[in-house]
């Protein structure tokens, strides 16, 4: 039986489900990783920015113009106060502003229209350096009171995050207050988080894909089981779909069983009709033939001749009708030994005068994948043929063909006269009996050949080592352990 569909090029349901799972899982997880990183970055910079903003607030609160009378009368000696300009009544609390190149800086400067920033007052940590803002802050200064920007610090390769605020001093002088901090640690934290988040998301993706794959396999397992049961039926190991299936698949299994049952009914009905037709036609034909043979008149001769033609036509077409119904049944198998034994016994009775020695050798567990009736028709005709022509011995051998292709071999040999090479093809010629004036050529081989072909098998004639004819029949089957 050929496969109805080219499964090699069919898309796999498992692959399709896994692929779609991958298609939605990977982007979602990637977006999640990015979002998490973004949130982490935001909170990191929020924590990072708070001290900068506090420092500016402290600077605003404590800056004074040096007009010789500071508001609180205190002067912080540590602060570097340009002459006649500004001083702080109280420095920002964080001690890192005091330690040189500590990574925490503040500066109060005067921003010129040409883009240069002149330091009016700065933290000790700057060690006399100034925070040089990038040239593009000019727009920010013009547009906003406060903003964040990047700058390079006094230390080597020291990227700073700078919080800047434009302030107009009580003296009316506009200044730009800057608080800055080394941003590398925060960047490293965010980078580490992004790496860990990405790694975790990749791990999660892999886990999810595996989970989806397992789920799909588990979910589809009843379908795979169903497929195995259908294979069992096709190969004749079962005659219906057995087992318990989930709600979604149970109707399919039930429908399959109904279909198999219907197929069996149709085949059986067809065979019954053929059988009834045979019975219905053959008895009247027997009456006609015998009635005509009892008389020598010309009329009787015509009736006899025509009845014989009808008989041959009926035989031929009934055989074809039976062949059409054959090979259609699914889920049937026949143990080879169970059929050959009774046939040998029956043929022994039919040919009891010949006292035939039957040498039957059947491999244990050999199963024919088809109907018992058809198998008996094939092997029965071959054995009957051998019995007709044998002198005393008929040998039947049934074994696997050794190729593991789902076929087995059946050999029927006799020690009769056999056939010549030329007679081989003649013996298999279908319809040969129709051309004969008398019924039967002594060979049921065309019938066997037709049946074997219906089962995708074959029939080969050859010479037996016992001297007579050897017929080798190849049929679908298997060996059950």
């Amino acid at each position: 039986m050929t496969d109805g569909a080219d499964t090699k090029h069919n898309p796999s349901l498992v692959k399709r489900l896994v692929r779609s799972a991958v298609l939605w899982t990977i982007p979602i997880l990637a977006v999640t990783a990015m979002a998490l990183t973004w949130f982490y970055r935001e909170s990191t910079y929020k924590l990072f920015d708070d001290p900068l903003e506090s420092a500016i607030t402290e600077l605003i609160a404590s800056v004074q113009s040096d007009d010789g009378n500071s508001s609180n009368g205190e002067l912080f000696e540590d602060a570097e106060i340009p002459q006649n300009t500004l001083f702080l009544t109280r420095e920002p609390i964080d001690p890192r502003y005091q330690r040189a190149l500590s990574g925490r800086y503040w500066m109060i400067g005067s921003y010129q229209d040409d883009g240069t920033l002149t330091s009016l007052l700065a933290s000790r940590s700057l060690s006399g350096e100034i925070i040089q803002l990038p040239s593009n802050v000019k727009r920010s200064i013009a547009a906003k009171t406060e903003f964040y920007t990047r700058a390079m610090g006094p230390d080597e390769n020291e990227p700073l995050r700078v919080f800047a605020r434009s302030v107009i001093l009580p003296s009316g002088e506009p200044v730009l207050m800057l608080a800055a901090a080394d941003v590398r640690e925060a960047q490293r934290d965010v980078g580490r988080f992004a790496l860990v988040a990405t790694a975790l998301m990749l791990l999660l993706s892999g886990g999810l894909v595996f989970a989806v794959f397992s789920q799909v396999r588990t979910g589809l397992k009843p379908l795979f089981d169903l497929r195995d049961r259908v294979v069992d039926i096709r190969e004749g190991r079962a005659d219906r779909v057995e087992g318990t299936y989930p709600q979604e698949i149970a109707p399919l299994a039930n429908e399959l069983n109904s279909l198999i049952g219907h197929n069996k009914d149709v085949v059986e009905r067809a065979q019954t009709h053929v059988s009834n037709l045979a019975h219905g036609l053959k008895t009247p034909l027997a009456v006609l033939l015998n009635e005509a043979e009892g008389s020598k008149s010309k009329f009787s001769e015509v009736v006899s001749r025509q009845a014989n033609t009808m008989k041959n036509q009926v035989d031929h077409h009934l055989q074809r009708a039976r062949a059409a119904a054959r090979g259609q049944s699914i889920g049937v198998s026949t143990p080879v030994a169970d059929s050959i034994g009774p046939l040998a016994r029956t043929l022994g009775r039919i040919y009891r005068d010949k006292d035939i020695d039957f040498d039957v050798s059947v491999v244990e567990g050999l199963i024919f994948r088809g109907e018992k009736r058809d198998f008996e028709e094939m092997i029965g005709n071959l054995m009957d043929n051998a019995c007709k022509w044998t002198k005393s011995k008929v040998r039947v051998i049934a074994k696997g063909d050794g190729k593991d292709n789902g076929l087995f071999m059946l050999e029927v040999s006799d020690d009769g006269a056999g056939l010549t090479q030329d007679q081989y093809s003649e013996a298999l010629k279908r319809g040969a009996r129709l051309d004969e004036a008398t019924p039967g050529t002594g060979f049921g081989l065309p019938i066997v050949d037709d049946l074997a072909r219906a089962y995708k098998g074959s029939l080969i004639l050859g010479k037996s080592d016992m001297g007579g004819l050897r017929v080798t029949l190849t049929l679908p089957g298997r060996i059950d352990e």
Partner: protein
Amino acid sequence: MRILVVEDDADLRRQLGEALKDSGYAVDLADNGEDGHFLGDTEPYDAVVLDLGLPIIDGISVLQKWRADGKTFPVLILTARDQWSEKVSGFDAGADDYLTKPFHHEELLARLRALLRRAAGHTTDSIDIGGLHVDNRAARCFVDGMPVKLTSHEFRLLSYMAMHRGRVISRTELVEHIYDQDFDRDSNTIEVFVGRLRRKIGTNRIETVRGLGYRLIDPDNVPVKK
């Protein structure tokens, strides 16, 4: 020899009856399985021709019942069912031969003769006893090579005795095996037929065993009484 034919088709049944009678057999006919089974169960037939597709009780069941009841007469199945599975079940039910329709009368008669011959332990259709030659195939009889003209009842009597040569056969047994069911069974007619046969084939060929019956013997080779 008495044959039972169980066949539901009226024309075929008639043909079979005529052909068998023409061949020298006493024939009873039944048109359904129930009647056929009853006849086979109650009458001592030498052989039965049995169709399988019968009304009331099918042929296989009839055969199985007979065999279960210990009936050993040979049965030839005559049927349109030509599948090997059907032949196997026919033989397994106890049939001795199987002939499929349509068939030639000659073939049926040959098969029947073979069955009767085998049942009586003979190997050929012809039986020779001294100079007496009984040809069951042609339903003819020769004495010392010369044909002897016999009526059908005379031939049946001779054929039955020849089949069971050397054995004492009672009048009742002869009546049961040479007459069909419808014949007026008067055992005195057996004596009449025996007398006629003796005149035709030789008086010393049929021995009367007082109180027991008749025996066909070779007059030149009479067993010595001790």
